[in-house]
C-alpha cells in the first residue's frame, strides 16, 4: 500500500505537529468514553473553548517571548490588574465599552514596553525583570480593588465578550444558522489556501504529498472544522471568545509566518548574534515581542473579567504558568527560535481539555495537578526525542 506508506512518512516527518493533534484527539476520545459522551456534548465543548480563551491568548504571546529566548512571569497579574482597571473604568467612571477596551489594550502595550525596555535596553534578565512585574502587578490589583473588594461588572456588552455568542439570525433544525455559515466559510477558506499553497509548491518543484494523500488531509481537516461547528451550532453557536481566539490566531499566524517582522523574530530567536550581524535590530524585536505580550495580557484580562462578570482581588493568579505550560505543550523550544502560534493555542486547548474532562469525571484537584504536570513533562520529552531523531 503506497498510500499507507506515504501516510506513515508524512506523520513521521511532521511528528511534532501531528503528535499534538493526535494527543488531543486521544484525550478527547478517552474523556468521551469515560463520561459516556457527556464530554463531547455541544454545551461542554462550547464551555471548554470559552474557558481556554484567556490562557490561549496569553500562550500565543508568551510563545513568542520564549522563541526570542526570554520569559515573562508578570503576565498573569498584569492581566488581572488590567481586568480590574477595565472594571473600574466601566463601572466607577462610567466610560463606554468602545473607549475602555482600546485604553486597556494600550495600557497593556505600555506595560509590556516597560518590560521590553528593562530587558532590551537595561539588560536585566527577563526572569528577574518580570518577576518584579509579577510582584508589582499583584500589589496593583490589591490596590485597585482595596476599597471595593470584588468589582461587579453589569455591562452587558462587555460581559458578552466572555459569555455571549454571535447572533444566530435564524435556527435551522435547532442549529444556529450564522455559526454554520461561519464554519462553512472557514472550511472554504482552509481548502482554498491549502490548494493554493500546494500549487505554489508544485510550481517550484518542491516535495508535495500525493493527490490522494492531499485529498485525505483536506477532507479530514474539513470534517473536524465541520464537526466542531456543528457541535457549537447545536448549543448557543460560536461564542465571542472563540471569535477573539480565532482573530488572534489568524493575525499572529499571519505576522509570524508571512511578514518581515515575523522572520526577524525567529531569526533573533534562533541566533541573536547572527541576527545582529545580519542587520536585524535585536532590541527593537525584543521591544516588539514584549509589547505584544502586554497587549495580549490586556486582552486576556478583558476576557477573564468579562467571563466572571467581575474583577476579583485574585484574578490572574497562576495564569502565567498555565500559559507557559500551554506554550511548551504546543511545541515551543526553550532553546529559542522554534514555536508556532497554532501550537500554542492547541497547547492551551489540551490543558483546558484535561481540566474540563477531569472535572466532568469528578477527579479531585490533587490528581488533576499531577496529571497535568505529567502531560507537560511528556510533551517536552516527546519534543526532545523527536528533535534528537531529526538532528
Amino acid at each position, binding site marked *: 500500500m503506497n498510500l499507507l506508506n506515504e501516510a506513515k512518512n508524512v506523520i513521521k516527518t511532521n511528528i511534532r505537529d501531528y503528535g499534538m493533534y493526535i494527543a488531543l484527539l486521544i484525550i478527547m476520545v478517552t474523556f468521551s468514553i469515560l463520561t459516556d459522551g457527556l464530554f463531547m456534548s455541544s454545551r461542554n465543548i462550547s464551555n471548554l473553548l470559552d474557558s481556554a480563551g484567556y490562557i490561549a491568548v496569553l500562550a500565543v504571546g508568551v510563545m513568542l517571548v520564549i522563541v526570542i529566548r526570554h520569559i515573562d512571569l508578570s503576565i498573569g497579574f498584569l492581566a488581572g490588574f488590567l481586568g480590574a482597571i477595565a472594571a473600574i473604568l466601566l463601572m466607577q467612571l462610567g466610560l463606554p465599552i468602545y473607549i475602555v477596551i482600546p485604553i486597556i489594550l494600550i495600557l497593556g502595550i505600555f506595560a509590556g514596553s516597560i518590560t521590553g525596555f528593562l530587558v532590551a535596553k537595561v539588560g536585566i534578565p527577563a526572569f528577574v525583570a518580570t518577576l518584579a512585574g509579577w510582584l508589582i502587578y499583584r500589589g496593583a490589583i490589591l490596590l485597585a480593588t482595596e476599597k471595593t473588594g470584588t468589582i461587579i461588572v453589569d455591562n452587558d456588552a462587555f460581559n458578552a465578550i466572555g459569555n455571549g455568542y454571535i447572533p444566530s439570525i435564524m435556527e435551522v433544525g435547532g442549529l444556529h444558522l450564522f455559526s454554520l455559515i461561519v464554519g462553512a466559510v472557514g472550511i472554504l477558506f482552509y481548502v482554498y489556501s491549502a490548494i493554493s499553497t500546494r500549487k505554489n509548491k508544485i510550481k517550484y518543484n518542491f516535495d508535495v504529498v500525493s493527490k490522494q494523500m492531499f485529498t485525505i488531509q483536506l477532507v479530514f481537516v474539513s470534517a473536524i472544522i465541520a464537526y466542531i461547528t456543528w457541535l457549537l451550532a447545536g448549543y448557543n453557536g460560536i461564542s465571542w471568545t472563540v471569535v477573539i481566539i480565532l482573530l488572534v490566531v489568524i493575525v499572529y499566524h499571519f505576522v509570524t509566518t508571512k*511578514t518581515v*517582522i515575523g522572520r526577524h523574530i*525567529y531569526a533573533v530567536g534562533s*541566533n541573536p548574534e*547572527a541576527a*545582529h550581524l545580519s*542587520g*536585524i535590530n535585536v532590541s527593537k524585536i525584543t521591544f516588539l515581542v514584549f509589547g505584544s505580550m502586554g497587549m495580549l495580557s490586556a486582552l486576556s484580562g478583558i476576557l477573564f473579567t468579562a467571563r466572571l462578570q467581575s474583577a476579583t482581588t485574585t484574578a490572574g493568579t497562576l495564569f502565567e504558568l498555565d500559559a507557559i505550560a500551554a506554550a511548551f505543550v504546543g511545541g515551543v523550544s526553550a532553546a529559542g527560535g522554534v514555536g508556532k502560534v497554532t501550537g500554542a493555542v492547541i497547547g492551551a486547548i489540551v490543558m483546558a481539555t484535561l481540566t474540563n474532562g477531569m472535572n466532568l469525571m469528578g477527579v479531585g484537584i490533587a490528581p488533576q495537578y499531577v496529571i497535568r504536570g505529567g502531560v507537560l513533562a511528556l510533551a517536552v520529552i516527546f519534543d526532545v526525542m523527536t528533535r534528537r531523531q531529526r538532528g
Partner: protein
Amino acid sequence: MSDYILEMNQISKEFTGVKALSNVNFKVERGEIHCLVGENGAGKSTLMKVLSGVYPYGNYEGDIVFNGNVQQFNKISDSVDAGIAIIYQELALFPDLAVYENIFIGNEIQSNGILDWNEAIVKSKQLLEKVKLKVNPETLINTLGVGKQQLIEIAKALSKEVKLLILDEPTAALNENDSENLLELLRDLKDQGITCIMISHKLKEVIAIADKATVLRDGETICTLDASKGEINEAAIIKNMVGREIDDVYPKRAKKELGETILEVSNWSAYDPNLGRHVAKDVNLHVKQGEIVGLAGLMGAGRTELSQSIFGNAKNYKLQGDLFVDGMPANFKHTSDAIKAGIAYVTEDRKGNGLFLLQDIKNNISAGNLKGISSKGIVNENEEIKVAEEYRTSLGIKTPSIQQLVGNLSGGNQQKVSLGKWLFVSPKLLILDEPTRGIDVGAKFEIYNVMNELIDKGMSIIMISSELGEILGMCDRIYVMAESQIKGELSKEEANQENIMQLATQ
C-alpha cells in the same frame, strides 16, 4: 646521551579523513625551554592535546615516553597526575572566585571532605611568591589584569608539582611589560628545574628564550633548531615554517583598472572594555573598487575585531578615528547602517554567528535583505524562493531542496549559503572572514571563482585569511596585522611567504 623528559615518537592523528599529525617526533630535554612554532593549523595544538590526554590513548598512533615511562593517558587528569600542566591561551580561571580558590580548584586541601581554606591561603601566598606576583590571595580574579591571571595559572600548575609546563601562546594577550615579566619567570622556573614547552607566534620571544625550537608544518616535524649551536634565528625559523609549495589552485582573473577608493579607515582604534585592551590600534587602510585586499596575520592578530568594528561596530567597542565610505565620512550606529552603506561581513564562525542552523536555506539567504523581497512588510515567498534558487544554482549549493535545514549541510555548502545571504544584500564591499576555513578543496576553488566573478562585476573584497597561499594567490594588495596593528602593506608583486610571516610574527 641526552636526558629526555619527554619523547613523542611517530605520533599520527587523523580527523575523519584529514591528517592533522603524521609521524611527528618531538623530544624535550629535562630542564630546557623548548619552543614549538608553526603556522595556524600546523598541528601544534593537536600535538599538545595528544600529550595532555585530551585525545585519549588509542585515539592516535605512536607513543609517548614521559619521565622514562611509556604513558597511556586516557584523560586529562592522567597527564596532570604524571606532572604535566597545560596553560591554554583562553585562561581557565573562574572570574568570580578568589585567587586562592582558583589555585586549588579541583585539587582542594581537605580532610574528610572539609576544606581547609586557611591552609589554602597560606600555600597560595607561597606559590604567588614563586611566580613573583604581589597580590592578596583573597582578591577576586576578575579584578586582575590578563597578565596577572596568566601568572595565577602558572601558580595553579605549580601547586600540582608540575614537572613539564606547557604554555599555549602565553603572551598573545599580554602587553610588552607583562610579556617580559612572564619570560623572566619562565627562566626562573627553568633554574628551579621545571621543563617548559612554549607555543608562540612571536619569533622575537622564541629567539630570546628558547634553548631549542621545533618547527611543525602541515602536521609534520620539519626540524629542531638548537640555540647552543646558534641555529635559532628569524630567517631560519621562517624558512622552515613557510616552506610549503603553493600549488596553482587559485583561478586567474583578468587584470583591470581599479576604481575609486570605496572604503577608507584612518587612525582607527577600537577598545574592548570587556578585555580591557585595544583590539585595533591606529589602523590605516583603504580599499579601491574592484580590488581584493588581503588581511593577513595569525590567529588573534585582531583582524576579525577590526572588521567587526568597521561593520557597524557589532561588538560595541569604543571607537576612535575616521571611517569614509565613497569618500564621505560615515558613522555606523548599527550593523544595519553598514549594510545600508553597502558593506557586508561574512563571519568566520558560520555556525556560531553566521547562520540560522534550524532554519532552511531560503530563510537564511533572505535574512539580510527581507525588505528586498517584501512589500508593506509582507514577505513575498515566491520571490524568496526564486532568489534562493538563483543562489543555489549560481553558487553551486549542493542540496536536494532549498527547504533543507542549513544545520544539515556540509561546511562548504554552509559557507556558500552564508555567502549567498550577503550577495543578496548586493554590497559594494564584501568582507570575507576566513572564507575557506574548514571546507574541502573543491568547495574552496568554487569560492575563489565566485570571488573573481564578484570582482568582475565591480565589487570589492577584503579577505581575512590565515592561509598564506590563499592570501598570495587571490589578493591584489595585502595588509599584515599583528598585535591589533597593521604591521605592513605589501603589493601582490612584493609579497611572499617569508615577508608576510616576518610581519605577522613581530
